[in-house]
């Protein structure tokens, strides 16, 4: 079991002929993802370097391939439009990798997607992976560990990319598998957030525990803490990046900024601890914190 994606997920890539799109489509194929086609306007009818059919529009791609998920590498100025096109074409899961999308574009796209019951992961994210079954995104596949019956497995939710790999690697090296890992992205306006994913993991019988990796900016972690206290019974381990970040400075991610007296790491950590979570002090001890928590 897993959440959102599995071996049956049929995936197209929007922006398949760009360098990042082509490279990561190849990586996803190699991992075993069912990549079924790609979209690049004006290149419809051709085959990609991977031998996949290319379509001019998402509508054509969905009609021909019955894809149910998309991975978007379209450049930032056009990326929100690409997501809305996918939603309109009937795609139910959109993984938006693109970084640098204007926030107000995402405000509009988010509403458009919500109205159509479409799930969005990202933007500005590494994507989603169910180890051993389906990888939609840019994470290195080999660091993950697929679940085996009887062994513990964790679900991971993270606002960061490389910091997620760090957590995954720590789990894998300690023999803990992952059911699904979701990078929700570093932008202020995004799709699925901690709460929705915690709910999915809580109800996934294969997931024994969750790791959430937050960072400064906004109040998503505080909101998640309240939700966990009320609704989550499985153990949750957390790490919050940016304890040393100065206020008023945007730390790389568009959404990682302490402003107006909210969004600092200290208050997030306090809220999570208050909700009963084990919060790792160091990014190097996320795996160990989970191991300790699982033994309890």
């Amino acid at each position, binding site marked *: 079991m897993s959440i959102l994606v599995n071996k049956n997920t049929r995936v197209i890539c929007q922006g398949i002929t760009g360098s990042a799109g082509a490279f990561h489509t190849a990586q996803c194929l190699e991992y075993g993802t069912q990549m079924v086609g790609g979209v690049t306007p004006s290149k419809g009818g051709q085959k990609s370097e991977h031998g996949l059919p290319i379509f001019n529009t998402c509508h054509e791609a969905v009609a021909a391939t019955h894809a149910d998920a998309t991975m978007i590498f379209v450049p930032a100025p056009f990326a929100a439009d690409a997501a809305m096109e996918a939603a309109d074409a009937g795609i139910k899961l959109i993984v938006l990798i693109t970084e640098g999308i204007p926030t107000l574009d995402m405000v509009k796209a988010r509403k458009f997607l919500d109205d159509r019951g479409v799930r969005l992961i990202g933007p500005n994210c590494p994507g989603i992976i169910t180890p051993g079954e389906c990888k939609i995104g840019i994470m290195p596949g080999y*660091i993950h560990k697929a679940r085996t019956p009887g062994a513990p497995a964790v679900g991971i939710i993270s606002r960061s990319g490389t910091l997620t790999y760090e957590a995954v690697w720590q789990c894998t090296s300690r023999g803990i598998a992952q059911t699904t890992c979701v990078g929700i992205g570093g932008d202020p306006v995004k799709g699925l957030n901690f709460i929705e994913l915690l709910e999915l993991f809580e109800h996934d019988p294969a997931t024994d525990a969750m790791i959430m990796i937050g960072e400064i900016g906004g109040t998503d972690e505080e*909101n998640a803490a309240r939700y966990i206290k009320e609704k989550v019974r499985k153990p949750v381990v957390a790490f919050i990046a940016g304890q040393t970040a100065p206020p008023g400075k945007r730390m790389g991610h*568009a959404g*990682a900024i302490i402003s107006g*007296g909210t969004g600092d790491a200290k208050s997030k950590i306090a809220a999570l601890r208050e909700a009963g979570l084990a919060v790792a002090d160091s990014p190097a001890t996320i795996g160990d914190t989970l191991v300790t928590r699982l033994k309890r």
Partner: protein
Amino acid sequence: MRIHEYQARGLLAEVGVPVPASQVVTTVQEAIEAFHLIDTTVVIKAQVFAGGRGKAGFVKLCSTEAEVKAAAQFMLTNRMISPQTGPEGIPVGKLLIAASVDIESEYYLGMVVDRSRHVPVMMVSREGGVEIEEVAARNPQAIVKEWLHPHLGLMPYQVGKLVDVLGFTQKQQISDARKAISGLATVFLKEDATLAEINPLVRTKDGRILALDAKMTFDDNALFRHKRLQDMHDPTEENPAELRAKQHELSYIALDGNIGCLVNGAGLAMATMDIIKLHGGQPANFLDVGGGVTTERAIEAFKIILSDPQVRGILVNIFGGIAKCDVIAGALIAAAQEIGFRVPVVVRLEGTNVDKARQMLKEANIQQLVSAGDLTDAAKKVCAAV
């Protein structure tokens, strides 16, 4: 990107928000001319981003030519020092000369994107003229919010509700307050702002409604479609190293410590700073080399880190996803050969092509380069080295 007060006033005036008559000047002579043109009493305000202008003596009320001359002379020749500028202060190049008004009452208007609801929100308060964070902490009920429809924007009925909150009853005042609220929303949406504030909006003793001060920041990711905002950018307000990093598509923020950081990914870069602190060190910077890192960009990253004279050691922490470890290793070797490392560089690599990268570094046999096993090991080694 932030803009100056006079530029924000300009954007508001353009969409019909009432603002006091004003002019921007760069010399004492221009200041005097502006004074004679504008009013019998003017307020002179230094145009800098840093707060604390009033206490530092960089906001002055003047009603004679001699006062204007003295104030302008002082502001244009002295560096402004406030808690926000640091002890060395900042130079002032531009002054705003504005008609002074007698304030009856002050109000707050502000707009941001509400991250939890993923839509912009307009906030108003009858407690204007102070930092809105103070009001939020002391008396949250005093701030009234209206959330915008993501596709339709701020609707007229919402403007009406907010004007009611501010308590205006006189016809002209209602009309001007409406202009201020809807004008702020127009600028926010049209120009891709991330923050837009009129603070204070005032009612004058003679009954006029005016936007007295304005603050705006814009979405860097949307600047590509706003040529005019790009032209408003004031590079003198930025840290030179941060500006240089931006030109090379590096995300860099200077900090006070002595351990430089070169990391891929913003989250990991923050976590790297945190782990340095946890092991007793002080990070000198935040630096995310990004996903599509090239050798040239990595060399530039090292140069920027090493341009900080305080740096006594560097921690390179790479977890390869898009960024491949061998590219970083190649860049490390190239940088070592091109600029030479004057400080120890502790390297911790993991991820795509890591074995190849480790092999490359081993074969290059670079002095000053220390290899680390895991993140804790790396943090301990770099903290011990400085």
